[in-house]
């Protein structure tokens, strides 16, 4: 294991939120004070640009540059924090918000100041009730202390932070859908351009940043971009990253490490304690359901944006779901596709219809029915969705399919040869409920 002390999640195992007093004792809100007292909004943007901080929500877009796109015009501007964390396998923002609410709020405040926004919205998924309640309490606490509100810290900047609770829709993590949801409309993605920086919330300039991204900002302001550059692999992969480790590992959980400091294998073996079954790793989904699977031959890839991309996938939100050799890859793909089918907003026909077809074909193949030509059908259908839709959900929805057909073709064919799934142990105990063509069926043992 490498020598590193976590700074975003400095209290492993803790279950109660860090109070304002405790946060300030450990140097909290120094970055916010420094920004308001010593820096112009443009200075803040330059400092964050110099740090190399890239968006932690998935796309990895440079944070400072994003703020720089917000035009310096009169009238309302908005900061939106994307706390709709809904990607399968992702639970990092939840821990930041539940344990370190003030770290996020300080980041929200600094970002709002940088783009000159007086209203900030934290759009949090509706199921995260504990986190949302905690954030509201923390906002009240900090506002009473004069950190936010009218004339924050007596420096003439007004800041209102609103917690807005979603109601169960993965699509709201897509930034333009999030804005539609905030405006009280059906959360369906917008066509771009214009981008949110120019026309965002209420058609006004808006920056949208992920929770973990904003949690990095106070440290950059307090300690300087040069300090931040010493963490990770500069210039393109700086700073700490929280890796959500789940699936077939002995010790699942959030592991905060510098970008590029460990490989998939090291994270799984040294931090996750190896696979829970003892069987070898079959593959790892590096970004929940949304990025192509990393097959076992690529486990020595370093965990940073560029290395994972070179290995043919995406670091994304860094939600690693580990699959071992006892897991049926076709079934895993079917489960992920069911997710996209369920979460497609329905605006673009290829995604709305295509995700359902992909799911149906995968279920058929997993049951050992269908034919080899179904594999070509999966690939051609994926090609009709990816790149032909308004947002990334449609693109993401094809990666569980195309990456597993390419990487595990033999396993698909094995299902067809046997006429059943060759992995009968996974979740098919007597009396259990099985996912069949018509939904949930009882007692139906696969194969």
């Amino acid at each position, binding site marked *: 294991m490498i020598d590193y002390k976590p700074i975003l999640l400095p209290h492993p195992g803790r279950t109660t939120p860090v109070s304002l007093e405790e946060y300030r004792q450990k140097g909290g809100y120094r970055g916010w004070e420094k920004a308001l007292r010593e820096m112009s909004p443009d200075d803040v943007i330059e400092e964050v640009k110099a740090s190399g901080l890239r968006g932690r929500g998935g796309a990895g877009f440079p944070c400072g540059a994003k703020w720089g796109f917000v035009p310096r015009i009169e009238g*309302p501007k908005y900061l939106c924090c994307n706390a709709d964390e*809904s*990607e*399968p*396998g*992702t*639970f990092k923002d939840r821990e930041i918000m539940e344990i370190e609410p003030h770290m996020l709020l300080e980041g929200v405040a600094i970002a709002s100041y940088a783009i000159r926004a007086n209203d900030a919205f934290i759009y949090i998924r*509706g*199921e995260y*009730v504990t986190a949302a309640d905690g954030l509201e309490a923390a906002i009240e606490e900090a506002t009473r202390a004069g950190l936010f509100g009218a004339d924050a810290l007596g420096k003439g900047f007004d800041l209102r932070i*609103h917690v*807005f*609770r*979603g*109601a*169960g*829709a*993965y699509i709201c993590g897509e930034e333009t859908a999030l804005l539609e*949801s905030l*405006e*009280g*409309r*059906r*959360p369906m993605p917008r066509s771009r351009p214009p981008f949110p920086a120019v026309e965002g919330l*209420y058609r006004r300039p808006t920056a949208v940043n992920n929770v973990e991204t904003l949690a990095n900002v106070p440290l950059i302001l307090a300690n300087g971009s040069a300090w931040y550059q010493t963490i990770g692999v500069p210039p393109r992969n700086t700073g700490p990253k929280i890796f*959500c*480790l*789940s*699936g*077939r590992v002995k010790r*699942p*959980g*959030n592991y905060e490490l510098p970008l590029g400091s460990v490989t998939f294998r090291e994270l799984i073996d040294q931090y996750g304690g190896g696979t829970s*079954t003892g069987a070898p790793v079959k593959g790892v*989904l590096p970004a*929940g359901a949304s990025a192509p699977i990393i097959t076992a031959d690529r486990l020595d890839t370093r965990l940073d944006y560029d290395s994972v991309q070179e290995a043919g996938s995406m670091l994304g939100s860094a*939600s690693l*779901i580990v*699959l071992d050799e006892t*897991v049926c890859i076709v079934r895993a793909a079917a*489960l*992920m596709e*069911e*997710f996209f089918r*369920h*979460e497609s*907003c329905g605006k673009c026909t290829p995604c709305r219809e295509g995700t359902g077809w992909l799911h149906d074909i995968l279920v058929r193949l997993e049951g050992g029915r269908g034919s080899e030509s179904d594999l070509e059908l999966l690939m051609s259908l994926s090609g009709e969705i990816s790149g032909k839709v308004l947002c990334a959900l449609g693109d993401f929805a094809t990666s569980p399919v195309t990456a597993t057909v390419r990487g595990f073709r033999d396993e698909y064919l094995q299902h067809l040869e046997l006429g059943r799934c060759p992995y*009968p142990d*996974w*979740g*098919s*105990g*007597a*009396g*259990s*409920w*099985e996912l069949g063509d018509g939904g*949930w069926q*009882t007692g139906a*043992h696969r194969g």
Partner: protein
Amino acid sequence: MLTPETRDKILTEVERYPQRRTAVLPALKHAQAQIGWLPPEAIGEVADLVGVSHAAANELATFYSMLRTRPGGRTRVEVCLQLPCALAGAERLLGALAEGLGIRPGEATTDGAIELIGTPECFGACHRAPMCRVNDDYREHLTPEATCALIEELTADRRRTTDGRRPRARHSPSSLVGRPARAEGA
């Protein structure tokens, strides 16, 4: 059909945001919190209070999975079946809950006390899988023992709230008794 308290809460939401339409979603949640679901009359009343068309409120009520336009059980037990939970035996958890509560997934008990749902949505508790939500509460690390305890708890709550009517469900589903943590083949 909304109480004065609910109407007040909705009007407070309308004041809170730069544009009133933003308040439709929080307002619908207040209405649902009062009634348990969103009948068409409630959706219309919310729309009138916020000052948007009934269609504008209805298009939200029918989109989000946490908003319900049909009545269901008073207690909702929602099991995540997405990949990380599925790898930890979520389907067996759902089966055990179904057996223990005497209902099928997607159904409510005949007295309307408990509704059981299996969903492909992920709730961000993958490191504590398998899990379910009981209304807004997260129930994580549901080992067979914890699942038996949860079924006991749900059944006891139901007994208290159903006016003495006894549930017929068994407390320790056979699918859990004497089973290892991982699923077995049939």
